[in-house]
């Protein structure tokens, strides 16, 4: 019996490589993907606003230089 058991133990299939299932981002019907999308959009718009801000600052500096002349 013991022998049989040990044979069965060894005959266990090799464990599968970890499969990504309903974990983290995929839990609760993948609602966190929607959250991630919102975060991306917010960061994108902020980054774009910053680039506009830099452009305006350059223009302000130009105006200052022009008014000094």
């Amino acid at each position: 019996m013991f022998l049989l058991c040990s044979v069965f133990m060894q005959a266990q299939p090799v464990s599968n490589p970890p499969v990504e299932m309903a974990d983290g981002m995929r839990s609760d019907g993948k609602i966190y993907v929607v959250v991630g999308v919102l975060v991306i959009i917010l960061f994108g718009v902020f980054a774009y606003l910053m680039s506009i801000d830099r452009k305006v600052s350059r223009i302000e500096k130009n105006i200052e230089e022009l008014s000094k002349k």
Partner: protein
Amino acid sequence: MPVPALEILHETIRNLYFHVCMWFSMMFILTVSLVYSLKYLNKPNEDYDIIASQSSYTGLMFGVLGLATGSLWARYTWGAWWTNDPKLNGAAIALLSYFAYVVLRNAMDDEQKRARISAVYNIFAYAMMMVFIMIYPRLKEVDSLHPGNGGNPGFNQYDLDSHMRLVFYPAVIGWLLLCSWIASINIRTERIKRHLANQ
């Protein structure tokens, strides 16, 4: 707001209010850009060039956001950030043709030449965008996996109680307004910049 429960999409059907709106905004503002490029070719006015160029820069920003949000979704639905789906590759080609527009503009110093050549190129880029985003993924032969294509659940066939439309249409209007606001800020700063440069 309740949403229809669908295979594959699950709760990410709510990306309709964000990811899809990014592309709508992009197409809207790129159409504005096309109109002003045509107007420029009809009557070379510097202001038309400013509006056309700044609108397409704004459109590019929305396109990049659309691609990034889609990529995140694909990572957790298809298992990869990028797949060789016709819809994805089509969108990438469309964006690349607008990146080429930016490069083309920056490559030329002479203002009138730049305005004229980029206006002509803009017409070409717009046609590429329409073909690769609107037509190519819808062909039967290429069979896209993107929601709404190739028999995959989108929202329009299943949204029987129109709850999604109730959110979607105002969201589209809101994003279009935000998009035109950003474009108008870009246009106004560019006008001031050119005005100073001419002094």
